[in-house]
């Protein structure tokens, strides 16, 4: 064992890139260190010992050493089989990875989010509604990043959200009431209270609820993404 070596930590690969002739640069989401980058030496060669292992959506146990810049992978073992994501489910997986790549800072631990990510991948394998899984993950991600949506009360800890009322979303403040179901005075999209309460309770059972949750979470995420769109959204035909 070397100095500074971290031993067998649960991790998922978010993205890989070719590095030099036969190596791979890995972007990982680990349970205790959050997002880190590692070099996997010789991982692309024909005699690589990591064959088939260093891919997204494979639960891994990894060891690495090095200081915070460019650390090196020493061991990678499968911690179960790869999540079987096909077709559109795979695109959803890419979407989750892109969100994490764009929004997590390196070396910020998010153990709860790691569990949520694992759960989302498991759900994507066979759930009938992929949308509900994505929304639950987005909501969890916002909370972890310190931008939790307050969905049971109006902004400034105001009155409780009413199911039959309409609201608009101010990214800096929260939900604010508005008069009708048409666009609010400032032109923002409007949400009905019923949908907000459903998202609050994680009970997105209705198509309308799902559509509203998607609109709202997208607004909240776009704020954090600095308006630069997510590329994986383009792949949904």
């Amino acid at each position, binding site marked *: 064992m070397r100095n500074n070596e971290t031993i067998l930590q649960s991790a998922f690969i*978010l*993205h890989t*890139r070719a590095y030099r*002739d036969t190596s791979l640069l890995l972007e990982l989401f680990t349970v205790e260190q959050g997002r880190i980058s590692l070099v996997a030496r010789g991982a692309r060669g024909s005699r690589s010992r990591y*064959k*088939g*292992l260093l*891919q*997204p*959506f*494979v639960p891994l146990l990894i060891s690495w050493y090095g200081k915070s810049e460019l650390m090196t992978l020493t061991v990678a073992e*499968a911690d179960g*089989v*790869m999540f*079987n994501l*096909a*077709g*559109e489910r*795979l*695109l959803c*997986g*890419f*979407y989750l*990875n*892109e969100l994490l*790549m764009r929004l997590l800072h390196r070396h910020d631990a998010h153990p709860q989010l790691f569990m949520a990510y694992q759960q989302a991948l498991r759900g994507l394998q066979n759930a009938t509604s992929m949308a509900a899984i994505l929304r639950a993950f987005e909501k969890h991600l916002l909370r972890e990043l310190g931008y939790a949506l307050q969905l049971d009360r109006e902004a400034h800890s105001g009155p409780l959200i009413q199911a039959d009322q309409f609201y608009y979303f101010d990214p800096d403040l929260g939900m604010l009431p508005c008069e009708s179901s048409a666009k609010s005075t400032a032109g923002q999209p409007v949400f009905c209270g019923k949908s907000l309460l459903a998202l609050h309770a994680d009970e997105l059972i209705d198509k309308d609820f799902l559509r509203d949750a998607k609109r709202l979470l997208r607004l909240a995420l776009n704020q954090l993404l600095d308006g630069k769109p*997510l*590329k*994986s959204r*383009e*792949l949904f*035909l």
Partner: protein
Amino acid sequence: MSFSPLINQLIAALRCLPGVGPKTAQRMAFHLLERERSGGLSLAKILEEAIANVKHCHRCRTLSETELCLLCANTNRDQTLLCVVETPADVFAIEQTGSYRGLYFVLMGRLSPLDGIGPEELGLHHLVARLIEQSPKEVVLATNPTVEGEATAHYIAELVKQRGLRATRIAHGVPLGGELEFIDGNTLARSLAARAEV
């Protein structure tokens, strides 16, 4: 130790090749200058010629010095089959097997949203134009078995099906002549999931 400027430049230039570091580049340079001068000259000549003339085939986008590559120009190939691959090297690999008689389309990459490569960046409108022009009966998706390759295959399959054409994907499985014990778990799991009747 430093050599005369021209030798240094040659060593530096050779390092643009894959797998060639400073030491190898130095060995190559001395080999050419000491023992292989005529070979070096013909290499320089053919390299210049190839780089000036080799472009992309207008139909399949593989590398070719003619407007239509030899495969596209061959009228004996099966016009009802179109195989979609990532790189010209993949065309070569499939041709070597001798078991495919159709035509090709080379993507020159793959969809990789996390690298910022979406359908537009990959130039998939070329493929759509090709589907309209050739209108094959079957499109064989032979992108790599990586997650990006799978996503690319899925996306193209949707494009193909929208046009009422048939899309097929090359199979995943255990390599021939291998031993199950040494095959990685993910490949083995895939081959079990896609097992076929005997």
